[in-house]
């Protein structure tokens, strides 16, 4: 299959394109035969019906198991009329769908009717559809388009589309077309009726449709697309409301996690191609395989993809032919020539044959859309729908395609739409850059998505690497979806509905009143506005050097793949936590972890919790809840109750109320909500900050685990070893039993930590790393320091290198961090800069300091007063031929030194009786001033 080697950092070795034999059957295009469809309404109408037919049939088949053959035959009948390629898949569908079907579906028209002809649909169904469509049509009314002209447009489109359709489908399509005309006509009058009642709705729509969106959408074509989408989006909410109303009458939507539809399996989270408009593409059959750009055959030979134009070439068709796929980027001869400024024409396809475009090409030419499935459900009438999140191509954004965009780049938008499953063509693969870099031969439908695009603010934002929150929600919802319990779904849907509302509210700032971004009520309201208007070039076009990679991996924020040197401690934590959770009684326990900063306390606990969570996901451990609190991030110690309660239940109350509720839960064993019986692990970082005067906060928290049914496990982290001993005995007896000490790292450990991060990056001399780790181990054993020193050293090396390159054009400098760089970094980090300041300070300051050292030495005292010092100063000056500047000037000089904290002094208005003290050892002063050039005589007094 074709691969793409994206530019620069996404390089991947090229793999040969494979022959079409390997194409999965799944990727066959199941719905080609259908009439033109876009996610919009007119199309929906027709498409839904066909789906209905289909489903009804399958249901009947299921019910009528006694005559399986008949059913199959009937199916075949449909299959025949709808084109051969449909056949296989359509047979398969019913079976897979079977389990997911609901009783409601029984009211679907009977089989006989269906068999008779596709043309006729039961009037009720039509009616209901019309209602819906009418409703949604209003959306477009509000947008300034009369429904008529819209319909006409669509009709025209339809007609065009059908003109090109190939024979076997013709009859059916024709029929359907006629019918859709009918429907539309009837709809028109319906519409006019309904228009009367909706003005209020219309207003609503208005307000929501054109929010204070910064600019109108750009080019015409795009505009159209954008508006259409807006319609669909509006419809999404509206239809949902509708459904919800209906629900109350007893009908429900059923949500699924996975649907097998038309032979393809679609799951929540999948990415799919969605039809846009058929008229633009005359080629209805979608090629499974890309054709060679030279010979226009899909032959079996190995193909290679050009990194510039994405065209595929047989190795043998190239001039000169290639034996194998080369490593690195490869650009075809045409593109090379074009780059050189020549006018190149690709070889024309042979007469009568049009070059067939693949889906990928169509998508990138915006003839197709791609969307990500957010949720799947079956409508009340049995049709399958999904909520899609659109992807757009760079050309559709406000900034257009930027030169550093990749060829296969897509953006995820914050635009949602409810789309019928029928309009799905097939799956595609939209990947994060990391996956993309790894994707070698996953076919042509591979895309890269790194950014989210805000359609209102036209801004880009990187996708968060881990969508933890969303995934978590999904995971929770899964169980319900899998079990497909109808009675359950009521609450679920309400929730969903709320969520939806929330999302919509999120997407459009209401014009009436905005909430403040930083207040709790409007939590982060409007924060989605934050984004770049353009993707900065340096992100993409910049190739990282070894040093830069080293710097990036040494960052404190980057989470290393492995956490060396803390295995023992992590094991201990794991056994503690597991023992506590798996215990049936779950007797509450308490663990106190202490150690100096930067020894990996919090990191280890979090890593353990991650491991355990993955075990929970695997199902080997019961679920639990995990609450993390940092004492230093609380405004007051009491706020911890609020935070814990909020983390457990999601409600925010005052701390007194929270304390009461938590007491009820943990001490009295009252379990209110569903998940309350889960064990709860509470991690309190910087525990010492919770110590209040009467220590009640700590007492309360540590008292809960001792209660019989609390199921609470507390892990406290602090720096001081003897914190429990400093506390009241009733607290230390509850906390001090199990302790874990994180000792400072020794130099081997530090070295291992650094080199494990630097694995595969050749940027450091080995001794340099050792030097840094030895130095840090001797001082504090703080891993953060060690990492920072190395990063700083890399930065210094990088700086020197870049400067040298810019000044001299020779690249003789090795881009390796040497001992000297590390030494410079260490100096900077650990050495106080006072010696340098003393060396460079003014003449009088130097005299002042010398006089001070002399005076202190003479008297043997720790401090002196300004009067005495001034006397000494004037003595020194007169005996060495310097002019004594006067007392006031001297006072000023002293105060300036005091400002820098080279000396400690009282405020200057104390004048004569001002007390002075040296802030650094007098040896430092002696060292700094001994060989000053302008005042050589100073050395005498030091």
């Amino acid at each position, binding site marked *: 299959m074709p691969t793409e080697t994206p530019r620069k950092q996404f390089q991947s070795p090229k793999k040969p394109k494979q022959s079409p034999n390997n194409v999965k059957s799944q990727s066959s295009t199941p719905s080609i035969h259908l009439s033109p469809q876009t996610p919009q309404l007119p199309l929906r109408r027709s498409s839904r019906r066909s789906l209905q037919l289909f489903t009804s049939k399958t249901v009947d088949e299921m019910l009528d198991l006694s005559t399986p053959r008949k059913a199959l035959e009937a199916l075949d009948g449909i299959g025949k009329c709808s084109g051969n390629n449909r056949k296989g898949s359509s047979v398969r569908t019913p079976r897979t769908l079977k389990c997911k079907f609901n009783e409601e579906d029984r009211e679907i028209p009977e089989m006989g009717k269906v068999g008779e002809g596709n043309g006729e649909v039961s009037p009720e169904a039509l009616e209901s559809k019309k209602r819906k469509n009418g409703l949604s049509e209003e959306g477009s009314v509000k947008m300034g388009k009369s429904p008529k002209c819209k319909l006409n447009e669509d009709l025209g489109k339809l007609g065009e589309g059908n003109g090109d359709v190939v024979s076997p489908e013709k009859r059916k399509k024709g029929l359907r077309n006629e019918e859709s005309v009918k429907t539309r006509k009837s709809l028109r009058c319906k519409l006019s009726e309904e228009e009367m009642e909706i003005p209020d709705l219309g207003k609503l729509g208005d307000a929501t449709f054109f929010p204070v969106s910064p600019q109108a959408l750009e080019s015409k074509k795009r505009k159209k697309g954008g508006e259409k989408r807006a319609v669909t989006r509006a419809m999404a909410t509206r239809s949902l409301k509708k459904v919800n109303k209906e629900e109350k009458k007893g009908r429900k939507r059923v949500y699924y996690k996975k649907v097998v539809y038309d032979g393809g399996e679609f799951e929540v989270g999948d990415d799919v191609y969605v039809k846009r408009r058929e008229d633009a593409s005359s080629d209805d059959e979608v090629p499974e395989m890309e054709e060679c750009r030279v010979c226009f055959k899909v032959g079996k030979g190995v193909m290679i993809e050009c990194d510039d134009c994405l065209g595929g070439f047989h190795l043998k068709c190239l001039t000169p032919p290639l034996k194998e796929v080369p490593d690195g980027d490869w650009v075809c001869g045409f593109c090379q020539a074009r780059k050189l400024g020549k006018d190149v024409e690709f070889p024309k396809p042979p007469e009568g044959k049009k070059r067939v475009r693949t889906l990928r090409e169509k998508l990138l030419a915006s003839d197709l859309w791609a969307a990500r499935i957010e949720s799947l459900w079956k409508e009340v009438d049995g049709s399958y729908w999904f909520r899609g999140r659109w992807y757009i191509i760079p050309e559709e954004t406000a900034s257009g395609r930027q030169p550093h965009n990749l060829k296969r780049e897509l953006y995820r938008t914050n635009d949602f739409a409810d789309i019928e499953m029928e309009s799905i063509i097939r799956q595609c693969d939209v990947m994060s850059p990391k996956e993309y870099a790894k994707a070698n031969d996953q076919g042509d439908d591979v895309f890269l998505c790194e950014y989210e695009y805000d359609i209102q603010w036209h*801004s880009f*934002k*990187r*996708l968060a*690497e881990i969508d933890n929150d969303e995934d978590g929600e999904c995971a929770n919802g899964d169980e319900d979806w899998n079990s497909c319990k109808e009675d359950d779904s009521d609450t679920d849907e309400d929730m969903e509905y709320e969520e939806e509302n929330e999302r919509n509210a999120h997407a459009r700032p209401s014009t009436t009143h905005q909430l*403040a*971004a*930083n*207040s*709790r009520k*409007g*939590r982060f309201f409007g*924060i989605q*506005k*934050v984004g*770049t208007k*353009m993707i*900065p070039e340096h*992100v993409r076009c*910049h190739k990282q050097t070894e040093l*830069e990679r080293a710097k*990036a991996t040494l*960052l*404190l*924020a980057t989470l290393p793949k492995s956490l060396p040197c803390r295995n023992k401690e992590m094991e201990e934590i794991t056994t503690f936590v597991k023992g506590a959770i798996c215990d049936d009684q779950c007797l509450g326990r308490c663990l106190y972890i202490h150690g100096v*900063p*930067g020894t990996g306390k919090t990191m280890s606990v979090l890593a353990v919790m991650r491991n355990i969570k993955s075990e929970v996901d695997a199902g080997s451990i019961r679920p639990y809840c995990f609450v993390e609190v940092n004492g*230093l*991030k609380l*405004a007051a110690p009491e*706020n911890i109750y609020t935070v814990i309660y909020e983390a457990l239940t999601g409600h925010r109350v005052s701390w007194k109320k929270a304390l009461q509720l938590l007491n009820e839960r943990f001490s009295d064993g009252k379990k209110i909500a569903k998940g309350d019986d889960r064990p709860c692990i509470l991690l309190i970082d910087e525990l010492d*900050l919770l110590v209040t005067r009467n220590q009640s906060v700590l007492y309360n928290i540590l008292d809960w685990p001792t209660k019989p049914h609390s199921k609470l496990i507390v892990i406290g982290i602090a720096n001081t070893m003897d914190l429990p001993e400093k506390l009241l005995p009733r607290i230390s007896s509850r906390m001090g039993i199990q302790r874990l000490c994180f000792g400072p790292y020794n130099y081997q450990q530090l070295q291992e930590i650094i080199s494990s991060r630097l694995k595969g990056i050749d940027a450091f001399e080995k001794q340099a790393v050792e030097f840094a780790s030895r130095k840090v181990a001797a001082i504090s054993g703080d891993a*953060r*320091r060690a990492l920072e020193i190395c990063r*700083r050293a890399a*930065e210094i090396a990088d*700086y020197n290198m870049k400067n040298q390159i810019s*000044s001299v054009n020779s690249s003789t400098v090795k881009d390796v961090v040497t001992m000297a760089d590390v030494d410079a970094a260490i100096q900077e980090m650990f050495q106080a*800069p*006072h010696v*340098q*300041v003393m060396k460079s*300070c*003014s*003449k*009088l*300051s130097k005299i002042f300091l010398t006089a001070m050292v002399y005076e202190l030495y003479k008297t043997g005292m720790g401090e002196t007063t300004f009067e005495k010092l*001034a006397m000494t100063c*004037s003595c020194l000056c007169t005996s060495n031929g310097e*002019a004594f*500047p*006067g*007392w*006031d*000037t001297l006072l*000023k000089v002293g105060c300036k030194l005091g400002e*820098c904290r*080279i000396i400690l002094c009282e405020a200057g*208005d*104390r004048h004569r009786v001002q007390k002075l003290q040296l802030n650094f050892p007098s040896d430092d002063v002696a060292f700094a001033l001994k060989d000053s050039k302008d005042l050589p005589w100073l050395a005498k007094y030091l």
Partner: protein
Amino acid sequence: MGREKEKEKPSEKALNLLRSRLSDPNFIFRPLSDSPDSNYSKLKFIISTSVTEACNNSILLLGPRGSGKVAVLELVLSDLLQQYPEAISVIRLNGLLHSDDNCALKEIARQLCMEHQLLFSKVASFDDNSQFMIAMLRECGLAHKTIIFVLDEFDFFAQGKQRLLYSLLDAMQSVNSQAVVIGVSCRLDVDQLLEKRVRSRFSHRKLLFLSPSKEDTERFMEHILSLPMDSSLPHNYAAEFNGRLKKILSDERFKELIDTYLSFNFTIGHLVRFLFQAVSYMDLNAGFLSLGNFKTALSSNQRQLKLESIRDCSVLELYMMVCMKRLEVKEQTSYNFYSVMTEYKSIHDSFQTSDYYAANVCLRAFEHLLQCQLISFIDNKGHNQSVEFRPVKLLISSAELHLGLKSYQQCPAILLKLMDR
């Protein structure tokens, strides 16, 4: 007349030009920023790499007051804002204004809201604001935007529990953010003030701002004071101005003068202030700088304020001070108005001076001395006590007093005698 006017005009123009140059930090620090060793390029490198490589950094800018820490930082920031117009937002805090964690966070939230056109609420709590800040850090990180926190007077942030610094630095090491914390302080030991868990999270980059070397100072003065040849100023005038300036700059006396000035004020800020003074003394009729201008500026900088205030005192006040000095010589460390009065009386008794005044007059003199801060109360206790009972001390040394008496014109001879005895 007309000629004179024409002549006046260029000199006024030149004066304005020089003054505007001297008050523009951009102009002052630009020429010092070329070399790779300069703080400017180092700082720029650090910040721009954290913009381009999406990393977090924390830097301390240290140096005595007037050494151009903030000026260089502003220069770097303005350059980077031009280079990456969208990718940087700067949050400025000052330790003198926002040393309280709560109000600092509020200010951060406010500036973030301003920067991104969000609505800001004054009543949001500490928690809300800190969560908002962390969320913004994350969002900005995702949008390739760097937030630069400039914490001026950094030492004031290192007081108390240091919640702000902790949450800021902790967010920087855990969240997917892109931020630079720049602390500016004149205290050299500021990193020792940080709590150990905060210090561990701080990345300890330090840039030290020192005073320029002698050669640099000379180059710098020439750069600032010489007029441009290709401006609206008449060519002849500018040429002559620069010629005279060169002569002054190479003059030994001038060098000595600058040396004396720099021997007590050594930072670049002070030098600029000095030059500003000197330029302001320029004679507009002559239209050129002269050595005299610099001399006047220097002498106005070398004023001995205590001596001057002695000169302003009345004879009675001098008597009182001499009395206090005598008391101190007698090793009587604590004295108040009445003990001074006793001494004064005893002097009068033994020497029969002509200047003897009643107690209430003396009290007035005493109060005036307090106001001049030539004497002060020993402690702040006893505010409700009346002035005459509170112990005071002399704030001027005997040497200074002696000098002062000598330079005092109508000083009675007896006073000088009393001083010695």
